[in-house]
């Protein structure tokens, strides 16, 4: 019996992904689609089979709230880095996270965050001589 649980939603996502890939492959020439076309079709078939012949996994459903929080947290971190650069961004993220969780006192949290920021500063700016970029727009 088909149930709309987390696992089935994930498999449905994979089915749409494979189907989209298959349709996309049709627009390429014979050389360019030689492998992507059959592989995506095979993936689509396996996903459909996996949907109906899977063993019930022990995945917990009550973790959804924490998962969303974790994903948003990393997104927040990436945005900080985008706006203020990797070294200061990492330092701010570390202090923010540690103070919020209150596992360490403020001085230890500050010391660890500062060490992370300095380490990244040294590697990024001094050692590799990179500059905060730049190429964000390439993705879009």
């Amino acid at each position, binding site marked *: 019996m088909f149930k709309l649980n987390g696992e089935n939603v994930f498999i449905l996502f994979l089915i749409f992904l494979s189907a989209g890939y298959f349709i996309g492959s049709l627009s390429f020439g014979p050389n360019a689609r030689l492998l992507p076309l059959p592989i995506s079709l095979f993936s689509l078939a396996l996903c459909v089979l996996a949907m109906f012949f899977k063993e019930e*996994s022990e995945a917990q459903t009550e973790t959804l709230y924490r998962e969303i929080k974790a994903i948003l947290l990393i997104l927040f971190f990436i945005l900080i880095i985008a706006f203020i650069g990797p070294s200061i961004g990492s330092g701010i993220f570390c202090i923010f996270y540690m103070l919020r969780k209150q596992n360490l006192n403020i001085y230890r949290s500050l010391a660890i965050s500062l060490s992370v920021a300095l380490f990244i500063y040294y590697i990024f700016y001094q050692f*590799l001589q990179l500059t905060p970029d730049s190429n964000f727009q390439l993705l879009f």
Partner: protein
Amino acid sequence: MDIFDAAISSLTLLLTYDVMLMLFIGVIYGLCVGLMPGLGGIVAIALLLPFTMGFGVIPTLALLLGAHIATIWGGSVTSILFNVPGAAKSLALVFDGHPMTRNGEASRALGASAMAALLGGIIGAIFLALSIPLVRPVMLSIGPSEYLILALWGLSIIATFSDGSMLKGGVATCLGMMAAFVGMDPITGTPRFWMDSIYLLDGIYFPVAMIGLFAISEMIKLYVKQTSFVERVEGRETSTLLSGCKDAFKHWWLVIRSSLLGLWIGVLPGIGASVGGIAAYAQAVQTSKNPEKFGKGAVEGVIAPDATLGANEGGGLLPTLAFGIPGGESMAILLVAFLSMGIVPGPQMLTTDLDLVFAMVWIIVFANIFTAIIGLAISPKLSKLPRLNPNIMIPIVLSVCLFGAYVTRGYFADMVLAFLFGIFGYYMDKYKFSRANFVIGMVLAEMIERNLHISLGLYGDFFIFTQPVSIILLVLLFITTALSLKRKNNRSKEVNV
């Protein structure tokens, strides 16, 4: 020059204060770089190159090769402790190295890893020296159709990897291959699945995907579960470094087999050490009396890939020096270094300049010894890291991982892609779709596609049946796949009983 004379004279060149100092500096530097995810041996050598001007040939080689070899073990450490492959080559270490850490056996895993890499490096160097006269005919007999079959053999070992559902394992492999097809078609240059993004035209950069799939997804998992990496064991670490070292000697036959495999994979240009590590793992599973232990913390799963990686570098040097064909990316950078030092690769390297080749062989041996000694010395401290509180661990590891993704090419977009792969990897792991299969599919897809096109172009549609070596490899492929499927079937029957 006689091979024996060349070996002795090159050793005397090496045993000097300045060469040993350079080797030591190179190893320390390589370990530091190797412990950073995303910064592999290529970055390590590329950054050292400008500082080598003015040194002699042998000290420079000691510095570069020392750094290169140490980065490989550094990558193994992050795979074992944090499930974060430092580089593509260290991928196979996450399959059993990290489960060992979770079982409270981090010290044993690090000890076995360091010792296997050392033994692999030494065995690889010895066999490299002995096999110099044999290399040329073997290299010339391997063409695109043979490479294709070797890649297909790599895919067939997925039957071994898929611990749970074969269907899910197959889906993961197909998805990995599909991810690898993003970007320009290798033959016609047709842009595929680029969604009008210039960034995606280059394809999905493998180290970035790996950082996302393994490292960021693990951080999401830690945040959700709120436990440290070592969640199953309470109290003190149960294993010792010495027990790991002993394990490497106990499985001496596995070490020798894996080292020879690593050596020959290194000799064949274009295969790469990442495939070597996976192949070594697969042969360890296939030949083990207890294959069901693999994936749950079997020490053989650490020993085999590390021995292969240790031996691989020696093998990679041969085509680089003898034909100017780099065995992999890091060998390409070394080739540039050789040229800048006035070393011109060619067949004469294996005849008139044999002492230089042997000097490199000795450097590999000493670099492995130094790496093992320093690695074993720092391992007790390293093995405590996974027991840190997750609330301290998450921000630090996340910073290093995202930063690692950023600095691999200096693109901010790489960080975003690593994040997306992190989410995908988390759900793959949660619903038991093998991330290892995804990565193997991704690694091998490019090799399969390129060699398939070349083979079709050169030999026609029935190319496999026109090449004798291909036919032999194909038969071996079918036999090993059938055997591993049969074993898997027997195991599942036993479990059901």
